[in-house]
């Protein structure tokens, strides 16, 4: 019995490290794509890789691991579930009547980063590139 448990723990512990390795590899590849502003339209493979890391981490615990196999397994579960979560919440959808090509832009006003007031008439006579983004975070 003791030998069987020891063997199981060996397998479980190894699995914990394998899980972490998969998670780290997936994060490295994902980060590279992000830096190249090149996340593919179909992120299925990424999701699969991250979930695989999480599943392997869970399997490690299910089979039974020594404490030092549990640590990477926990990381793998956390990292492996986080990215699919962010992918799940990332879809965007505009309001019912968004601005479209051919429309004239509305009149608008706002404060800029120095606290100065900006008015859309300030643009008159120039072409302008307007970028709406989610902020610096």
């Amino acid at each position: 019995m003791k030998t069987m448990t020891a063997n199981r723990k060996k397998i479980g512990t190894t699995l914990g490290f394998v899980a972490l390795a998969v998670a780290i590899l997936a994060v490295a590849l994902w980060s590279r794509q992000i830096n190249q502003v090149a996340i593919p339209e179909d992120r299925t493979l990424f999701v699969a890789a991250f979930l695989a890391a999480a599943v392997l981490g869970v399997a490690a615990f299910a089979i039974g691991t020594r404490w030092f196999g549990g640590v990477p397994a926990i990381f793998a579960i956390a990292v492996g579930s986080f990215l699919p979560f962010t992918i799940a919440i990332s879809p965007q959808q505009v309001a019912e009547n968004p601005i479209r090509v051919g429309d004239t832009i509305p009149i608008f006003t706002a404060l800029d980063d120095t606290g100065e007031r900006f008015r859309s008439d300030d643009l008159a006579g120039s072409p302008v590139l307007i970028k709406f983004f989610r902020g610096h975070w």
Partner: protein
Amino acid sequence: MAELQREFDKRGVQVLTVSTDKPGVIQKKRGVHRLKARMLSDRNLAVTDAFGLRNQLIHSGPPGDDVEALPVPTTLLVNSDGKVLWIDQAENYQRRSGPEVVMAALQTHLDAP
């Protein structure tokens, strides 16, 4: 980015950015991109709503910031009469267009054939 600024200057294109960041946050990060843009702080989403660009799906905003919603990441090229010539919009926030897409838009829509 500096290359892009030269292309904007060549064509007399002004650059305007809109986000819900507080003015202080925007100022702090300005040094990074070095564009001569006028950067607006749209805390109450008035500008975002005027353009109909408020994201209607799950809101995931900056931690610690209680802003109600964020705009769908969108870039518009507008001519000197205020008419929208080109729009680039994200169907999810992880996919962003690179500067080459903006370059192509400038060349396609502003340069004489």
